[in-house]
């Protein structure tokens, strides 16, 4: 114990303790020598001899002093400080070099850290503020043909009550709430959750409490309580603890605030921040959802989250769930035949923005690594060039006794300082770049909720530091090795002309530049492919006309409207809007085509059609007003459109699309055929032309429409469309006034032109294309800088040779061509390798797809253009032009060499 304390104390004293002063030690030594000399004189020696003896016994005054100095402090810290001081001096002296190196590193590290921040938020730590997130899993219902869908509330109850290998199963349903008094209500997004939601997730209360076990029950309307987010608490209540126990008016009903969730908790969907949590059983009060719908196993709208019991493996738990779900499918065969359930990691859940984000993020990460590689190659190149200039300095230091290791460490310290500065700069830019990424999110009601925690988090910091060290090592290993190979006498003797070592180094730098060109080509081809894919997709005809249409989503249930009142509101608003000048059409529907939100479906039975075993009879649908198809300019190809007479009292009718006819009626006219859904039989009255429903790139699915007045239910959305002659925004103020005229409590929150709104389906492709273009340009720039620096250096080295050539009559044009040819040679090598790499990359990203809907539909990121030769040729040609330009500047300098000057410089 003592010994350890002594060692620690000694280490502490050496590192931080007061320094023993060297002049004091000198005095002590002098005293020692004097005493020793006096003893010698006393023994009969001459004073000179006595002093000589004393010094010999001491073992040399200077050596003693050095030994004392080494003991005084920790020498390696001393040396490190020296290295850092020296590196700072070098950086300050070569400002241009430092700036280029630090900026390139900042770009590379910043971009990679940003990508990592998002990946961290989406994939690695999808939920903040929960206990042991690695034991949380998503519970998905699986349809008979293997597609993933949310769960129904009764299914959830079975899961919750019967599964043994879980520490709880919770369910949640995303919902918009209208909070506050009627005339100044505010839209707030939150979740309707099962009572045990917070307990299963392990969320702590910042203030008050979370839901109690007495609130875990399944009695509709029995739990008028709510938990609010820390963010909402701070912004709306100034973090006042007295708010606990007060009431809050949600959807015109008073609920009691019982608690505030921990600040890190943002809800159960990655990257999206919710503000309010209410027990799901309040659905019946808040949204007027009828009791039979809460008990309907068809109503699959609950996302399931479960916590594995400690020591239970994912596979065991999945099996237990599957066994139970399979039994339930038999017990409830009328609604769940062939259904099952499965578990998946949180990030894999197909609901929420991660489905959209994962594909682009994977590509983003890949591209960032690519850019980082180019950055490292570039900095290595710069360092090598610097090392050449500093060869004499290094040689001199070695001649004065510095070890090779010491100098190599110096090189490493310098590049660590460079990458450190770059990383600091890059990290500082991360929140900003993160926000830039957010603006690429499609405009949708939920877009404003997308946020990543931009506070520096430990994982991101550790990642950046690691990145920084790796980059520093990668960039300095070659220059450091070069130091090791320095031939001392040759260097000091050589008059300054590069010997054979110089040529080897040129080869190395050439290879680096060639690899930069190769990587830049990969980035450019990627940018080209994505941009082309994006443009191709843009050119796809959606099958409807989104221009001049204003879209607004109403959340009337949040105003306390019942179903009849909502229908009546739509009818009256429609009438008023049609009367307004410039408005040509008005319509409303449940789903928005090509929107951000998932599409819904209904399980159908079709008269005269026998489904194959396991065939998925869940067909996508929309609930529309009679004006919808004309407003969208979707023509009828057979039969008739809905009319106002297709109302609650008339027989149920349905319109199907052409793909529906192909699939279920083998192309024969379906008019008059009967189809069963929502518990009743519909008669097909018309066939609408195919259009795009979820993605522009999709292959058209079977789809059908039912009339708003016959099917519209409490839990459906209400999207209101207005087509006007001019700018859709001009219809906005009319819509506002008219909506307010009908009911002052109804607010138009987030109206947007349909054209913008449907951009959501293009989001992943847009992100991929714009990111690749930005990063491709950076890669191109870096490669050009690298090429230029190598060519300029080579020309500088060959000045004398060029002078001789010119003196012997070489033509300046010839000389510059010689230099350009050398540059092109380098670039060509890179282009060949780069083409091979790019083809490989295209293959890899061809398979990347994205999804924004629950039922497994997805579209490819690249579209169809993965093997477009023109893009490869174009990128290669472009790079060649850049290569010519980058080597032309040094070439011009070479051609303007004055032979006399060059020779005299010898």
């Amino acid at each position, binding site marked *: 114990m003592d010994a350890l304390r002594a060692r620690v104390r000694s280490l502490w004293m050496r590192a931080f303790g007061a320094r023993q002063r060297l002049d004091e030690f000198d005095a002590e030594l002098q*005293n020692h020598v004097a005493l020793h000399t006096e003893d010698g004189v006393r023994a009969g020696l001459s004073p000179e001899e006595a002093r000589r003896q004393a010094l010999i016994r001491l073992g040399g005054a200077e050596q003693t002093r050095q030994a004392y100095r080494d003991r005084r402090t920790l020498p390696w810290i001393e040396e490190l400080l020296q290295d850092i001081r020296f590196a700072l001096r070098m950086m300050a002296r070569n400002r241009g070099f430092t700036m280029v190196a630090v900026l390139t590193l900042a770009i590379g590290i910043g971009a990679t850290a940003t990508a990592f921040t998002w990946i961290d938020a989406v994939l690695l730590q999808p939920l903040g503020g929960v206990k042991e997130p690695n034991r949380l899993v998503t519970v998905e219902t699986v349809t008979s043909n293997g597609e993933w869908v949310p769960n129904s509330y009764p299914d959830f109850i079975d899961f919750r009550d019967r599964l043994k290998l879980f520490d709880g199963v919770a369910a949640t349903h995303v919902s918009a709430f209208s909070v506050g008094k009627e005339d100044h209500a505010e839209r707030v997004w939150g979740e309707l959750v099962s009572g045990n939601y917070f307990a299963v997730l392990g969320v702590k209360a910042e203030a008050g409490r979370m839901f109690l076990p007495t609130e875990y029950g399944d009695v509709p309307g029995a739990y008028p309580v709510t938990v609010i987010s820390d963010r909402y608490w701070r912004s709306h209540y100034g973090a006042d603890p007295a708010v606990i126990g007060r009431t809050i008016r949600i959807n015109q009903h008073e609920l009691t605030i019982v608690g505030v969730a921990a600040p890190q908790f943002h809800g159960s969907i990655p990257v999206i921040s919710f503000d309010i949590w209410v027990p799901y059983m309040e659905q019946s009060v808040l949204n007027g959802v009828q009791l039979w719908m809460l008990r309907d196993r068809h109503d699959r709208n609950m996302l399931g989250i479960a916590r594995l019991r400690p020591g239970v493996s994912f596979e065991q738990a999945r099996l237990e769930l599957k066994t139970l779900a399979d039994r339930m499918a038999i017990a409830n065969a009328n609604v769940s035949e062939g259904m099952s359930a499965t578990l998946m990691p949180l990030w894999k859940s197909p609901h929420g923005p991660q489905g959209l984000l994962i594909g682009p993020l994977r590509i983003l990460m890949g591209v960032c690594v690519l850019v980082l590689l180019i950055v490292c190659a570039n900095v290595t190149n710069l360092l090598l060039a610097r090392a050449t200039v500093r060869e004499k300095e290094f040689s001199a230091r070695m001649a004065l006794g510095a070890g090779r290791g010491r100098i190599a460490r110096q090189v490493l310290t310098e590049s660590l300082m460079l990458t450190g500065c770059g990383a600091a700069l890059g990290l500082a830019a991360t929140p900003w770049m993160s926000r830039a990424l957010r603006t690429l999110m499609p405009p949708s009601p939920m877009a404003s909720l997308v946020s990543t925690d931009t506070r520096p988090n430990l994982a991101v910091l550790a990642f950046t530091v690691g990145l920084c060290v790796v980059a520093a090592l990668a960039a300095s290993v070659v220059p450091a090795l070069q130091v090791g190979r320095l031939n001392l006498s040759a260097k000091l003797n050589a008059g300054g002309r590069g010997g054979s070592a110089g040529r080897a180094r040129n080869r190395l730098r050439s290879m680096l530049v060639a690899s930069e060109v190769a990587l830049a080509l990969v980035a450019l081809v990627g940018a080209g492919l994505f941009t082309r894919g994006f443009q191709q997709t843009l050119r796809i005809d959606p099958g409807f006309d989104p221009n001049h249409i204003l879209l607004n989503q109403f959340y009337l249930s949040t105003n306390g409207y019942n179903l009849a009142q909502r229908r009546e509101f739509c009818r009256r608003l429609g009438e008023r809007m049609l009367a307004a000048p410039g408005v040509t059409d008005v319509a409303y529907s449940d789903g928005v085509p090509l929107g951000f939100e998932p599409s819904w479906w209904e399980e159908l039975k079709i008269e005269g059609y026998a489904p194959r075993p396991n065939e998925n009879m869940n067909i996508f649908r929309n609930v529309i007003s009679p004006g919808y198809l004309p407003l969208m300019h979707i023509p009828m190809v057979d039969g008739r459109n809905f009319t106002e007479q297709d109302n609650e009292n008339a027989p149920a009718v349905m319109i199907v699309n052409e793909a529906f006819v192909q699939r279920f009626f083998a192309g024969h006219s379906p008019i008059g055929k009967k189809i069963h859904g929502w518990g009743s039989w519909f008669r097909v009255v018309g066939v609408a032309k195919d259009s795009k429903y979820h993605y522009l790139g999709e292959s058209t699915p079977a789809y059908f429409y039912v009339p708003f007045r016959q099917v519209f239910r409490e839990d459906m959305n209400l999207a209101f469309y207005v087509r006007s002659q001019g700018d859709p925004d001009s219809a906005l103020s009319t819509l506002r006034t008219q909506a307010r005229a009908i009911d002052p409590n109804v607010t138009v929150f987030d109206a947007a032109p349909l054209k913008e709104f449907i951009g959501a389906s293009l989001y992943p492709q847009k992100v991929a294309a714009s990111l690749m273009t930005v990063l491709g340009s950076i890669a191109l720039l870096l490669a050009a800088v690298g090429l230029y620096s190598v060519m300029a250096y080579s020309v500088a080295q060959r000045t004398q040779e060029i002078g001789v050539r010119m003196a012997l009559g070489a033509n300046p044009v010839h000389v510059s061509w010689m230099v350009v040819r050398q540059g092109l040679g380098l670039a060509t090598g890179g282009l060949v390798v780069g083409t091979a790499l790019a083809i490989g990359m295209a293959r890899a990203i061809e398979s990347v797809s994205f999804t924004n809907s629950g039922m497994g539909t997805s579209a490819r990121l690249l579209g169809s253009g993965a093997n477009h030769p023109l893009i490869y040729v174009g990128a290669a040609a472009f790079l060649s032009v850049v290569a010519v330009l980058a080597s032309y500047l040094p070439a011009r300098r070479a051609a303007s060499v004055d032979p006399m000057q060059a020779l005299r410089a010898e």
Partner: protein
Amino acid sequence: MGGKTDVWQGTLALMVLKTLQLMGPQHGYGLARRIEQTSGDLLELNYGTLYPALLKLEQEGYIRSRWGASENNRKAKFYELTKAGERQVRKAAAEWEQTTEILSRFLAPNAEA
């Protein structure tokens, strides 16, 4: 680190501490001479290594130093034992005795055969 210097440094430290314990405060030269005398002049110290060793002991907290006047009235730095040093002397001495005892058993001509 070579084992030899370790042992040597270890023993030097113990010699320094023991000498300080017996003789009270000493300056560097006096300490060196005293150690040589105690060893019956069998040891010839390299005085150059003494000072770093003293510094080390000081950093470890076993000894402390202060300036005073030497016998010839020079300003000299005197070293003295601290409480921790006292403890360390006892401990190290005991360890050392045990080591030598064990070793001597091996080296004794007719140990248990």
